[in-house]
């Protein structure tokens, strides 16, 4: 066991209710002060990460084009387990202030492990769901990549939406909707099945 004091913390009744609420509020505010919130498109189980670094970069799009990302070259499987789309107050102000003319986001890509004989199912692309991040990413709704079912993601696109950007900037990320589409990896080739050891 970790060798630290096993003395119980301060007794809870030593703090009054109002103090507790204040402290909790401070905690919430301090978390929001990081100025960062995110959305995530994650291919569901059994797709899993390949354990490479999450390669992050800032993507700028112009003239209301979507921000798009694909696997990096060192991702041998050429498939993604997930893409996290991060934003912050500065990015949101740029997006909202230019009404989507200039649209920066930060992408973090997780390479997917090879998929041997992935089960059937999954669509070619998601429906381009509206993804809502509430409380600076502490609660999120249905995953945009869920329609990929058991297949990894090949590409993720974030479509500019000035109304969403204004709402996000106005609430400093407390409520952050985004229009995200995940393009799923193609179905396996017919011969890509696992082999018997001996015929």
């Amino acid at each position, binding site marked *: 066991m970790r060798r630290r004091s096993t003395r119980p913390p301060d007794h809870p009744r*030593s703090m009054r209710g109002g103090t507790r609420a204040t402290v909790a509020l401070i905690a919430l505010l301090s978390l929001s002060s990081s100025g960062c919130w995110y959305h995530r498109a994650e291919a569901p*189980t*059994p797709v*899993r990460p390949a354990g490479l670094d999450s390669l992050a970069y800032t993507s700028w799009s112009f003239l209301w084009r979507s921000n798009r990302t694909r696997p990096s070259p060192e991702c041998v*499987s050429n498939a993604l387990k997930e893409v996290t789309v991060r934003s912050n107050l500065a990015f949101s102000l740029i997006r909202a202030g230019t009404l989507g003319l200039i649209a920066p986001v930060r992408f973090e890509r997780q390479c997917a492990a090879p998929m*041997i004989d992935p089960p059937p199912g999954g669509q070619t692309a998601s429906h381009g769901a509206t993804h809502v991040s509430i409380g*600076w990413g502490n*609660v999120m709704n249905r995953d945009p990549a869920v329609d990929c079912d058991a297949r990894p993601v090949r590409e993720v696109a974030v479509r500019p939406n000035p109304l969403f950007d204004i709402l996000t900037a106005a609430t400093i990320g407390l409520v952050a909707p985004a229009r995200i589409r995940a393009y799923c990896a193609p179905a396996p080739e017919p011969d890509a099945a696992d082999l018997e050891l001996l015929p």
Partner: protein
Amino acid sequence: MNQPSELTPQIVVAASRTWENWHESVKQKVVQRVSVWNRDPVRPSIPSYNATTAALQGLIRDALARGVELRAAGGGWSFSPVAATDGIVLNTLPLNYRFWLSDADLDPAWHGVADRLIFSQCGMSIAELSTALEQRGKSLTTSGASNGQTIAGAIGTGTHGSALEYGAIHDSVVALHLVTSPDRHIWLERASRPVAAASFVEALGAEFVADDDLFNAALVSLGSFGIVHGVMLEVEDLFWLRTWRRQYVEDEHVRAAVGRLDFSGLPAPPGIAPGTRPYFFQAIYNPYDRDGGPYLSLMYDHAADPGGPRPPRHDRWRPGDGAAELIAAVTDLSGGTLPPLGNLLVRTALPAVNGDTGTWGEVFWDTATRGRSAGLAFGIPLSHALTGVDLLHELNRDFRIPGVFALRYVRASPATLAFTRHADMTCVLEIDGSRSKRMLNLYDAAPLALAEAGIPFTLHWGKMHSPTPQLLRDMYGAEPITKWQAARRSLLPTAELRRTFSNRFLADCGLAG
């Protein structure tokens, strides 16, 4: 030295020299992070597998030459630093070949049939394994509830489930392919339970070793017996589980079920005969609602799909990465978890389930647990289950953790350092939740309290665990430790090899030498 060939795996060296585990409880600088990819990642073949064996031997040679540790990190799923190293971290996640066997691959003395065996490369995850097996009409017998571990990592740390007639995952393993040095790799199985034909082992180019003591020691190896490159597992025909979960008032019948696995008085779900022993059983206590009683999960197995709603796979809403950290911060700052918050969290996480039906992989599909969560798990004799959980409730009056107490049940394992070693049934008493200061303080206090109460315990290797040689001796006794060390010295005969496959955690255990 092997020459590069068209099958030579791709080695990817990460730019970053920082390694962090999945649950963000261990983070450290390392010499190098290396990923190995089979040359043709999606078309398994024995020649390609063998080329990867050679590449792993090359990595061991490199680590020896540089005088640094080499550690396969698996899924990084352990809360403890069991997989950590300041040397070379080997990322095995891309290594997920699997092979189905024929009867010709088996020793004639093997009691079973080939289609109940799978030979899996080390990096395959438990969730992925479940999916692969299901496609062949097969199933794992057990697994954890959260399944991002690799198969090698899961067995090396003693990952378990709560299937009442089975042991932990490693108890399904019948053979291991271990890469132990630059010029040696072995096929290890029990002499008392031979499984592989000589031709199979020759196809891998491995040295055949059949030895019960070596095998039992190498099962829960803590990643310290070389690199586990392949695992042969015994599996079952596909089956379906019907699940019921709700909160039960803690009367004598519920305590009999939780404390003795006596289901004779427990109200049976619809269509289940009273007193039927479930395939899977677990109890989760909300420490802020003791009067409401535990949440019991009962799962009954069926050889054919009995119908019923499928387990939900996708939540409409889910917590984000920072949710556990937020809960930890708020509860630390506000003097402990307030009962309304604790109740809200538990009710949200444990909704009632009424007859949902799914295969093992469909029921235990989650691999997405994120953030600063925490887990501590004691293995205790079943006879102490109720005393143990009562004691935790008592302790929590002072600590008021943001978490729950869970009881799971595992058949005793023959593995030398399995923490599920308490015969004939080990109760795994867990404290799970957000990683707050209060939680960590309870983790310090709980083992002392158990020891004071005279409850013998072991600690899950993959959960929060800060060992000392004395603690290890108290938990296992001297003999298993001596046997485990002797087995390790037998497979890693030089001090340099043992240093290469050691780490700080192993040294803290007193097992590194």
